[in-house]
């Protein structure tokens, strides 16, 4: 069994009649995490080659070619890979079909093929995902990863086709989504990335794309164990209020549980690299006990290919000592704040887009306040491009008159990035 450990941060003391348990669980993979399962990486790169990529006098398509060739160069020998060119349909660019095994020869062939690509046509992201799924399906035990690059909205297929295509990909591969420029839709890409356990980000300028692609491939190649799941047991009568990944980014996992038995669910975590650490915030309602009772609220296990080992316990002790039961755990408070920050940014931007300046000022002001309090410097900087900050402690801000579209999108897409407790600057 792989090498994982966990720390639980919680206030296990509940008042009489109290039934809600909050816990932050930090899961860390050890150096020998690869002991379980295969280390074979399958990488399918999906590049948007629709007509809009010719904008900026061809700068976009040229940058996409350079970035994809850089990605191919970054692949280690032995990685199985393929490249898909996407328009209103999916077209496999390299190899002609199936997967190629990376070596000097295949890398050169792939780059030659990429060089000759011309951008033309529409955007139907669902068809691209379907082709990627077909390729990944042939290697069920591998660490399956894709990069999806687009510069536009999903215009040439109905939304339900995209949704159905995403659903068909769940569990087959993980997908990091990147939007080039500002004409793509954050919510659409987030839909793909959330379902396929990946990230979303904006690449504002074509020239930044090469470095981004290299970084994505490098981090995919560090992954050594696939199909990890958080297995959660809760007692009979308990109700899962929510389960969120809260670090490095906020991802709601509540609806993603796959039942193992009536009291146990598996929440897929995707692939892990050695020495990685992620935080999860769990809130569970359990049947209340009497003062002095002790009950297990959740048993946290780590499952890989149906082998599970317990890594943490979330407990409840009922007490009539208010000093104990009213205490709020520092980690739980911190991540509750980070979740509120992400929500305030999202709501503030939505209000701003809808012309409701009063709500937008209030929400974004609150976001500035939390970012300042919790030391989320990255979010604070992004917020400063959208609002003028008068007093960060009080959250007094004024909306900027002219905001660059890319700054607004960057704030939206990166609002879910959190900082950890104890790492705050001042």
């Amino acid at each position, binding site marked *: 069994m792989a090498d994982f450990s966990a720390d639980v941060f919680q206030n296990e*003391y509940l008042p009489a009649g109290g039934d809600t348990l909050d816990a932050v669980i930090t899961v860390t993979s050890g150096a020998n995490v690869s002991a379980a399962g295969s280390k074979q990486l399958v990488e399918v790169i999906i590049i948007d080659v629709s007509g809009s990529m010719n904008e900026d006098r061809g700068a976009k398509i040229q940058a996409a070619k350079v970035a994809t060739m850089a990605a191919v160069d970054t692949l280690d020998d032995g990685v199985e890979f393929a490249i898909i060119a996407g328009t209103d349909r999916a077209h496999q660019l390299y190899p002609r079909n199936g997967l190629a095994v990376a070596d000097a020869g295949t890398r050169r062939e792939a780059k030659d093929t990429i060089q000759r690509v011309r951008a033309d046509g529409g955007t139907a992201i669902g068809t691209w995902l379907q082709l990627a799924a077909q390729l990944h399906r042939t290697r069920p035990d591998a660490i399956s990863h894709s990069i999806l690059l687009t510069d536009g909205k999903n215009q040439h297929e109905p939304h339900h086709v995209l949704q159905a295509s995403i659903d068909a990909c769940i569990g087959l591969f993980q997908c990091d989504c990147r939007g080039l420029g500002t004409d793509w839709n954050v919510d659409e890409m987030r839909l793909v990335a959330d379902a396929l356990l990946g990230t979303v980000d904006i690449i504002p300028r074509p020239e930044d794309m090469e470095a981004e692609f290299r970084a994505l491939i490098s981090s995919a190649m560090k992954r050594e164990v696939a199909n990890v799941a958080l297995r959660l047991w809760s007692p009979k009568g308990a109700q899962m209020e929510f389960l969120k990944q809260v670090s490095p980014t906020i991802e709601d996992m509540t609806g993603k549980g796959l039942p193992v038995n009536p009291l146990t669910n598996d929440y897929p975590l995707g692939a892990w690299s050695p020495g990685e650490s992620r935080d999860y915030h769990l809130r569970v309602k*359990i049947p209340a006990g009497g003062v002095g009772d002790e009950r297990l609220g959740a048993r946290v296990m780590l499952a890989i290919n149906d082998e599970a080992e317990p890594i943490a316990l979330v407990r409840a002790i009922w007490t009539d000592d208010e000093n104990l039961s009213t205490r709020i755990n520092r980690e739980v408070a911190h991540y509750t704040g980070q979740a509120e920050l992400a929500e305030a940014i999202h709501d503030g931007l939505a209000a701003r887009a809808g012309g409701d300046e009063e709500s937008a000022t209030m929400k974004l002001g609150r976001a500035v306040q939390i970012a300042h309090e919790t030391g989320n410097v990255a979010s604070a900087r992004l917020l400063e491009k959208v609002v003028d900050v008068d007093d960060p402690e009080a959250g007094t801000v004024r909306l900027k008159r002219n905001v660059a579209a890319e700054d607004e999108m960057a704030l939206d897409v990166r609002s879910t990035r959190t900082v950890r407790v104890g790492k705050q600057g001042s």
Partner: protein
Amino acid sequence: MTTLCPKGCVSEWDDWCSVCGDRLGADAPAGSAGGTSASASPDPAWVPVAAAAPDPSEAAAAASAAIPDGRPCPHCGEIAYPDDVFCESCGYDFASGTLPVIVEAASPDVTPAADPDPALTPAVTPSLMVTVAVDADFFAATTADVELSLPEPIPDTVDVTLTASRNLVGRHSESRGILPEIDVEAITDDPGVSSRHLMLERSSSGTWTFTDLGSTNGTYLSAEATADPITAGAALPVGDGLSLWLGAWTRLDLSVDEASAD
């Protein structure tokens, strides 16, 4: 390996109940002193805690120690069988040293509704529903090598509702004057059930318990061949959806009917 939790659930774990989450025994890890964080690793150093949680195995040990060995009953002087838990003559409970409460032993045909003064009846008197069935899988897993065969045709399942506070489950014996409330042999034709096999009791607080009375072939919490019988003499709580296996092919499904608590 299964463990019975204080509430009567059948738990797969021995530190916490795998059904209701209650603490079992002293194997659970201690929380940190500050009450703000606890940490567990794949190989945690479990720190035992002086837990106040009732431990069924302790009660069982105390009970089996109290069973007299062919000596006279301290109450009526009747000679007890070596593994008897109750005196066959007067009903004296060797484990707890108490006599059966005669006041509650109303004849079964007097329904609680007929009680002239409802204020005198205990506040909670849930009845116990017992389904008696032939379990061919249990027979195949445990006793199939013995020269026995299942009755043909397989007798129908019978539902019994117990409203009295003490109910014997066993095999009827004219010669010894044993007339169980649930006569298993009459229902499932099971020869492996002892005359005085199991006692189903409701306490004055309304909790139902079951006690193996030192039966010859034991009472089991699982139909698997590897299961161990429950400890004779220990009164164990009846949990929701509990099933017991006894004899060669009998299964009892127990459920407490709170609705009849009036």
